[in-house]
């Protein structure tokens, strides 16, 4: 039998052979499984409870988003991006709008940019809250889920008031915003910031120093910064491994350079560090939101963009820091009203690559914890 460590991934051809080996067990986890966050299918090769290797099978939620883009105008494709990472739809929209704006060489007016930042950061908090709830649920703590959903509701209410939708918001338009902020928007956001701060402490109270939580997360799913970079892993996972890389700071977009915030990093690259990094990120997002609400300027919300968009021939790559990592859009224009090709670089898809590496020699229970800590959304993985 081949040494499992030298196997690059789980080899289906050897499954027949290894199955007869009484020490090994091949388990199919998903696509219907309570902890694979949707329709991820993981084929695990186990020695007792130890994971020898695993392979992810994806594509159960493939909707051909990138192909659809080729048959839609730039404006028509905008709502589709919300359906990729449906828990962070605002970030997806921001990335797409900014990419097309870059192609058109226009820039959204400052007021629009401020509102964009507020909504995107609110969405980051919502996404992290959902992650925390489901991640804790995977590890067996069922209560944080309900706490985070209760507080996420307040963010969704703000979205609903702003644009009528709660989840797939379609909040931004190419060149700015469709809607002016509603009356009392700033007040609502301020109220939310005040409301959610003690709530984040409440989540931490349940988990951060909980002995079982520490044992379940410390030293689990360790990945080094070098491996992260080699695999293209980004976002909180990369930062928890000690690499200070945040596109909001590194390649500032929108107007993030006007805001004062810190990038949290971890040292060990384990599940606990990723948890802590995301918790701090929520607080930093609140900080950005507070600054943005305080400094929101008056003015137009829409730049001058033609009704029929025909970007010049060329290509553009624009990436933003989505809650889950680097979200990039590569758009090729042939000068017509429809993009020639749109390629999305989804953070979940790339981060999922690290699953095998992170789960080797760990136990089945850790696979669940690692899937949770990678914070994947299958809508984005499969697109």
């Amino acid at each position, binding site marked *: 039998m081949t040494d499992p460590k030298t196997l690059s991934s789980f080899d289906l051809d050897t499954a027949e052979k290894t199955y007869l080996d009484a020490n090994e067990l091949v388990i199919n986890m998903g696509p219907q499984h309570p902890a694979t966050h949707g329709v991820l299918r993981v084929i695990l090769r186990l020695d007792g*409870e130890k994971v020898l290797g695993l392979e992810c099978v994806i594509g159960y939620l493939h909707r051909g988003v990138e192909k659809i883009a080729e048959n839609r105008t730039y404006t028509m494709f905008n709502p589709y991006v919300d359906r990729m990472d449906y828990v962070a739809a605002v970030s997806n929209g921001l990335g797409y709008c900014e990419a097309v704006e870059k192609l058109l060489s226009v820039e959204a007016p400052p007021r629009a940019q401020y509102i964009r930042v507020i909504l995107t950061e609110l969405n980051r908090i919502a996404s992290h809250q959902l992650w925390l709830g489901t991640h*804790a649920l995977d590890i067996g703590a069922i209560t944080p889920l*309900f706490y985070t959903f209760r507080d996420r509701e307040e963010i969704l209410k703000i979205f609903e008031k702003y644009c009528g939708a709660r989840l797939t918001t379609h909040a931004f338009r190419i060149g700015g915003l469709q809607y002016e902020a509603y009356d009392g928007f700033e007040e609502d956001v301020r109220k939310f910031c005040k409301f959610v701060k003690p709530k984040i402490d409440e989540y931490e109270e349940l988990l951060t120093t909980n002995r079982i939580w520490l044992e379940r997360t410390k030293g689990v799913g360790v990945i080094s910064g070098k491996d992260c970079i080699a695999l293209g892993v980004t976002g909180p996972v990369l930062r928890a491994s000690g690499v200070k890389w945040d596109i909001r700071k590194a390649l500032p977009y929108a107007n993030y350079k006007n805001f004062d915030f810190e990038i949290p990093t971890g040292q060990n690259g384990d599940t606990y560090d990723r948890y802590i990094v995301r918790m701090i990120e929520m607080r930093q997002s609140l900080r950005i939101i507070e600054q943005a609400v305080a400094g929101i300027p008056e003015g137009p919300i829409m730049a001058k963009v033609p009704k029929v968009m025909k970007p010049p021939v060329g290509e553009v790559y624009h990436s933003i820091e989505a809650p889950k990592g680097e979200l990039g859009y590569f758009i090729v224009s042939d000068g017509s009203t429809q993009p020639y090709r749109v390629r999305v670089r989804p953070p979940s898809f790339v981060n999922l690559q690290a699953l095998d590496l992170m789960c080797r020699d760990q136990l089945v*229970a850790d696979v669940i914890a690692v899937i949770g800590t990678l914070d994947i959304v299958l809508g984005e993985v499969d697109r």
Partner: protein
Amino acid sequence: MHSIVEYITSYLQSNQTPGAAGNFAWATIYILLVFVGLSIAVICMNWLERKILAHMQVRLGPMRVGPHGLLQPIADALKLLLKEDIIPAEADATVFWIAPFIVVLAAFTVFVVVPFGPTHAITDMNIGILFMLGVSSLAVLGIVTAGWASNSHYPLIGALRSSAQMVSYEVAMGLAVVSAIMMTSANAEGTGTLSMIGIVQAQLEQHEWFLFKYFPLGIVAFAIFAIAMVAETNRAPFDLPEAESELTAGFHTEYSGFRWSLFFLAEYSAMIAVSSIAVTLWMGGWLRPFPNALSGPTWDLVFSLFPGLTFLFLAALCFYSTARMPKHPLFRIQTMGLAGFGVVLALIGLILFWGPARTRIEDIYWFSAKVAGFMYLYIWYRGTFPRYRFDQLMKVGWKVLLPTGLALLILTAIVGMRTEILSMFQEGLR
């Protein structure tokens, strides 16, 4: 005819359990009472768990079936009974069929020796506690066969986890139990007992719950048992065999309908059973709280009013909720039902103030109240803790609880024999 009446009434004057008195008519009645009471307790637990957990998690829990979801467990039970009973094609049908019955049998049989009062037990065995531990550990057999017979990976892993967990925690549990049993021999004659009733009576004679005996040894033994019993019953944070997020449902993944409900029934009655052991061994069984500080006939009377007061309080809760029910005609039947339930509870409460009923029910009340406290703890754990990983669970069992238990056992022995040991030393010196 006369002899039968005599046979039956002869028990009423006896101060023994029906089993020990050899009165089979009364033993049968007691068995039926325990069985019905246990089933009702499980149904109540089902509702209470969902409600309490819901309130811990800022939600309402069942609200639709009956007022405040009171009829939800009955609806669930009906649904489970009417569901299709699926036996997977690949399963070993006979073993698959038998497994839940082994679990239920083990869970119910232990109640033969649970002492609800000095005479309120089906029987009193001189090896009562051994019987309880022995029979309750048979449940693991049912779980393993269930996991094996399902012929599926998740149940198999769940069953293996469960057997490893239950076997290893039984060791620590046993050590804690032995230390409590050693305490029963701390009397003038130096005679200990394994009888469940005897253990409580030993606490009565020594005027001390074993929880506080040889402080802090009693509390440590109790803590070991309290941790081990959660692991033994596969509940959070040790619910790995049925870890929902990992193994979907563990050993009963392939079970459905009535057979699944048997596992459910067994799990809850096992929880009540181990809590009964804890209450009997450390918390004075049926004895009322504060027997030393608040002694005397007046206090006896005050404490004997508690059962009635509890039911009156529940009735008051019902009436309060009735007043708060929506006034819409749609809710008329629910409102009337809740009020009726309140009236029934109030009547029971009033009956419990009646002298003969009061004295007979008091033991059972205190025992049940203490067990109920443990049941609340089970729910509280579930709402608070994440789940341990398998190796960590084993580490806690073998590396923490077992050495502590061993040290505790030796310390309890030394402290219990301190006068003898001292005199031995003095003799040696002489």
